[in-house]
């Protein structure tokens, strides 16, 4: 009866709904997940900070000075009288012979103006453009009394804010590398496992179960301790990344495998097989893309774990070691009674950790709900 009746082409909206690719649909669903969108912005912000760490930092993260050891965060005054002239007060510090604490007094008569895009130590912006400009800065330079410490200083009198910026760079990139590695492992092994099934599947599944059965800490310790200690900070950095990811891939593999099992028999896969695509081609050209969104979601959810792992490893003294700066290293320095008791601001690096982990989680949840609302 098809010839009966003129059937006008379905109109735009209709098209939009029916023709929309997995990607568009995902995107639409994602958009309505407001918290996730917000998180996405936060994450973006973090990675901008990663790129511009040395621009955002205003002090050399290694410059130490006893005269400003353990200086609490400085209050920023935005207005001078009525005029918008952000400044901080000069501070003088002495060691109190009774309490043996360093006591700092701000001197309201000495206002130190905060300059934007001020001169500072030299660096290469984005690793290329050599410059001395920093987002903010003061004229004082390294003079112990004439400078600014947004978040205070550590025992060696190094500026926490600047160190935090560099820490962010390391920690977030470590997470990224780690996830990439475990992603590859996860997709490949999970894929194979789900695609071929049978013996290979069983083997891989056992492996995963065993890996999961071993408490992570000893695994880390074993592997991390096995690293040649004479390695440079950079080598350790990469090694640690690999280690973390070696243990991170199982979850991803599980997800991928599940997907594969459910998809193995779907028409387009079968047909792909029929037209004689090689197994690998079938997997990576036809199957993987069709659930990329899930992989991305899973990845995002794996990132926080990486970040936490990095801090944990540092805590155990197995992660990055000074002079490298990472969130883990910073937190390890804060991991003592005197910090909690007299210099609590040294615990601030926990804040970006918390924010980042939550952002990634919400983002990941959003992506996953979007990718398919029923998981």
């Amino acid at each position, binding site marked *: 009866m098809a010839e009966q009746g003129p059937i006008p082409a379905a109109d735009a909206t209709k098209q939009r709904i029916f023709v929309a690719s997995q990607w568009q649909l995902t995107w639409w669903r994602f958009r309505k997940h407001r918290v996730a969108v917000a998180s996405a912005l936060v994450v973006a912000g973090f990675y901008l900070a990663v790129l511009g760490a040395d621009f955002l930092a205003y002090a050399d993260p290694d410059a130490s000075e006893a005269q400003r050891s353990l200086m609490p965060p400085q209050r920023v005054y935005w207005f001078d009288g009525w005029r918008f002239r952000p400044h901080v007060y000069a501070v003088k510090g002495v060691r109190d012979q009774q309490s043996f604490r360093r006591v700092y007094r701000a001197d309201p008569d000495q206002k130190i103006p905060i300059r934007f895009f001020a001169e500072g130590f030299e660096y290469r912006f984005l690793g290329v453009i050599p410059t001395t400009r920093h987002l903010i800065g003061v004229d004082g330079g390294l003079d112990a009394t004439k400078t600014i410490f947004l978040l205070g200083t550590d025992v060696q009198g190094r500026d926490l804010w600047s160190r935090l910026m560099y820490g962010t760079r390391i920690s977030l990139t470590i997470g990224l590398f780690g996830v990439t590695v475990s992603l590859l492992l996860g997709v490949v092994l999970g894929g194979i496992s789900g695609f071929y099934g049978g013996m290979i599947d069983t083997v891989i599944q056992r492996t995963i179960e*065993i890996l999961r*059965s*071993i*408490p992570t*800490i000893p695994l880390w310790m074993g592997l991390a301790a*096995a690293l040649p200690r004479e390695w440079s900070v950079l080598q350790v950095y990469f090694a640690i990344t690999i280690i973390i990811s070696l243990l991170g891939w199982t979850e991803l593999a599980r997800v991928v495998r599940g997907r594969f099992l459910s998809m193995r028999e779907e028409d387009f896969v079968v047909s792909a097989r029929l037209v004689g695509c090689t197994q690998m081609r079938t997997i990576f050209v036809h199957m993987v893309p069709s659930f990329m969104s899930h992989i991305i979601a899973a990845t995002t959810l794996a990132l926080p774990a990486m970040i936490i792992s990095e801090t944990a490893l540092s805590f155990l003294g197995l992660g990055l070691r000074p002079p490298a700066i990472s969130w883990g290293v910073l937190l390890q320095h804060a991991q*003592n009674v005197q910090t909690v008791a007299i210099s609590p601001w040294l615990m601030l690096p926990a804040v970006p950790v918390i924010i980042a*982990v939550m952002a990634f989680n*919400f983002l990941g949840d959003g992506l996953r709900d979007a990718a398919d609302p029923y998981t």
Partner: protein
Amino acid sequence: MLAYIGRRAVLAIFTVWAISVLAFVIIQLPPGDYVTSYIAQMASMGSVVTDEEAQNLRIQYGLGQPIYVQYLKWMRLIAQGNFGMSMEWRRPVTEVIGERLWLTVVVSVAALTLTWVLALPIGIYSAVRQYSAGDYLATFVGFIGLAVPNFLLALVLLYLGFVLFNAHIGGLFSPEFSDAPWSGARVWDLLKHLPIPAVILGLAGTAQQIRIMRANLLDELRKPYVVTARSKGLPESRVITKYPVRVALNPFASTIGYTLPYIVSGSIIVSLVLGLPTVGPLLLKALIAQDMFLAGTIVLLLGVMTVIGTLVSDILLVWIDPRIRLEET
């Protein structure tokens, strides 16, 4: 059913074996052996161990043989129910671990319970009210636990406990009970020390559990039997609790398997900071001192716990979910 359990048990045994090998390898990974670290320790205290002494020690401890020999030796010991001698503690490993293992379990179970007490209602709520403000809030709260670096949290709580409540610092027992025989008083003392570790460890797991519960429930809520239940005229609360929640609990139950070891493993760091007499700190020390039998045994035990946990939860799952039961048997 029995056949199923049997099959799983066999697999479990295989896994345990694999773990024992892996455990042993892990401990051998770092350079040097117990004697090396012993010498180092002596040296940093100013006393000196000569090469000859070191050689003797190695021979006495049976170190220096190829790994597989040492492994087999260890296996033979275990077969005799003797896990070997701790080199650092100079006591049989079993004695050293002693009640620490059970305390570990106690702490972990406490944490697990807390996790569930939090995760179940929150998960249910945020599934039923998906995308509501409450949903977000609940998830948010859940994630905080996940996000806070627990070693730092532990230290802060430890300190605040002292400053605000004058609590005894760390550990699971007050000094007078630390190696007293078990008694009502001692149990009570233990309970008084439990909350902080339980909270720190529990929080970490909660987020994940919330996720699982929420996801499962969202699935179930879409099933027709829910409509049936409604169409009977059941009040909504009962509809939710009797049907979808009940069904969603099944896969949830199956998470015990990896939640427990997850917590145990996580408890290592927290135990260290809080100075809990659990296997955690012991393991760390053993690994650093390369006290291989001790470290190996602990890793093995934790692994076994995991495997058993998984086994139990699988069986539990089969038991509470008739569908699987039918397929399996």
